[in-house]
């Protein structure tokens, strides 16, 4: 396949970037999207040009490190992570626009790499449980009904890639937050800190400069793990409950 790539190039956080055009030939449809970029980078390095910086780590769709907006869609046209997107989803002669996640809370570090520490700080604000360290307790010491365990696991599937923020017209981080709050809120271990968790996380979210949710569902459609919109409603309910408890 021969492709035309429009890629966002930005030297550093303090400089302004611009789209730049590249033509790449001999792309196999069996390549992953990131392998296609690897090939482009090898060509750029041979020519003595600066390779395109992008984030990736596990390349098996479980770590949440990669993430590109491809033709206006977070992680591209399939419901998966960028690393698990393959070139068979594109046609010979296609023009592909590749941009970083765009949100004030995710400043661009270089080219397609963004700083997503704001998500880490939201987790640090309350996305944890307190537990005694040492010998692990018996797995069946706390009984959890199957439905609750399933819903907790659904929330726990979030890999923190930030596609929800990238896809949201308001650059809101509420699907990410809702997933964690639902995950911990469905389990007995999450109950002691349940009220404080939602209050602190929402405060941190707003302080990081994310926008508010308008219940459109773009986040859920872009989520590579298919996390449903109802986790946001769960978070809203938890916050109202915490406020009614005077938190």
């Amino acid at each position, binding site marked *: 396949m021969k492709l035309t790539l429009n890629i966002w190039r930005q030297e550093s956080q303090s400089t302004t970037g611009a789209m730049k055009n590249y033509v790449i030939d001999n792309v196999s449809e069996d390549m992953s999207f990131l392998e296609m970029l690897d090939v482009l980078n090898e060509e750029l390095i041979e020519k003595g040009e600066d390779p395109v910086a992008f984030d990736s780590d596990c390349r098996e769709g479980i770590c949440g490190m990669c993430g590109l907006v491809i033709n206006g*869609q977070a992680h591209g046209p399939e419901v998966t992570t960028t690393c698990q997107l393959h070139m068979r989803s594109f046609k010979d002669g296609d023009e592909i626009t590749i*941009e970083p996640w765009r949100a*004030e809370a995710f400043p661009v570090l270089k080219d397609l790499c963004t700083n997503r520490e704001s998500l880490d*700080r939201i987790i640090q604000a309350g996305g944890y449980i307190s537990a005694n360290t040492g010998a692990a307790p018996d797995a069946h010491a706390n009984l959890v009904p199957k439905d609750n365990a399933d819903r907790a696991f659904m929330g726990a599937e979030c890999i923190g890639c930030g596609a929800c923020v990238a896809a949201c*017209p308001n650059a809101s981080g509420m699907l990410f937050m809702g997933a964690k709050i639902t995950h911990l809120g469905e389990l007995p271990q999450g109950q002691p800190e349940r009220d404080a968790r939602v209050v602190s996380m929402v405060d941190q979210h*707003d302080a990081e400069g994310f*926008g*508010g*949710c308008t219940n459109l569902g773009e986040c859920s459609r872009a989520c590579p793990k298919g996390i449903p919109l109802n986790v946001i*409603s769960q978070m809203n309910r938890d916050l109202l409950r915490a406020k009614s408890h005077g938190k």
Partner: protein
Amino acid sequence: MHADIVGRASDYLPNVTCNITFVATSTVSSTTRNGPSTIALKSLMAITGLIFIGFVLAHMYGNLKIFAGEAAFNEYAEHLRELGEPLLPHEGMLWILRIVLILALVGHAYSAFALWSRASNARKSRYAVTKAAKSMFVSKAMRWGGVALLLFIVFHILHFTTNTIQVNGDYDNPADRLVSSFELWWVVLIYLFAVAALGMHLLHGVWAAGMTLGLNTSAKAAERLRIAAILVAVVTVVGYILPPLAILFGIIP
């Protein structure tokens, strides 16, 4: 506070000559937020929105009185002014309701503009390519449609409440005012557009209010909420377009 491990790899591994700086954890920056949380604003929007839904349905019931005849319509209008008498003065209850609605309008518009501004500050650099997502239309319909409804409300009050704008002569009773106005096709057209905007606003608004108030926590609840939104929107649109159309086509003389 978190104990941070900050340093160079060579501090810990003397034989390694690399120069990688690593930070195990970054501490939580102190939270400084201006004003109420986004969810508090959303809740204000949802609760004031529910007040408007109640008002819109009650107003629709009053409009439909025109089908029971001019006398019934005028009596209903007069009754609204006598509501609560003799405990309340004449028009007392009407003014209480008007004040509640004005406060709700201020709250609804304030939270809308505050959230709108926060959302545009959250993404200052725009995407070069945006996939025309279906939800973008709904989103624009909520914000610009809301502004359109606000302008319509001003026009509507000047038209029927204060009688400042007289489109087809001066009449002193409400039924005559209604019938004379909707005999003009362009007045009907303005109201049809406004009702369409209201219908779209409700279709997303009912759903969003339910989401914000924590009523959607399962697939089944989502289904119920969607049905409720469609029901409220359809009932409102049909209930509001019937009187003007009936007048325009001469069904109501």
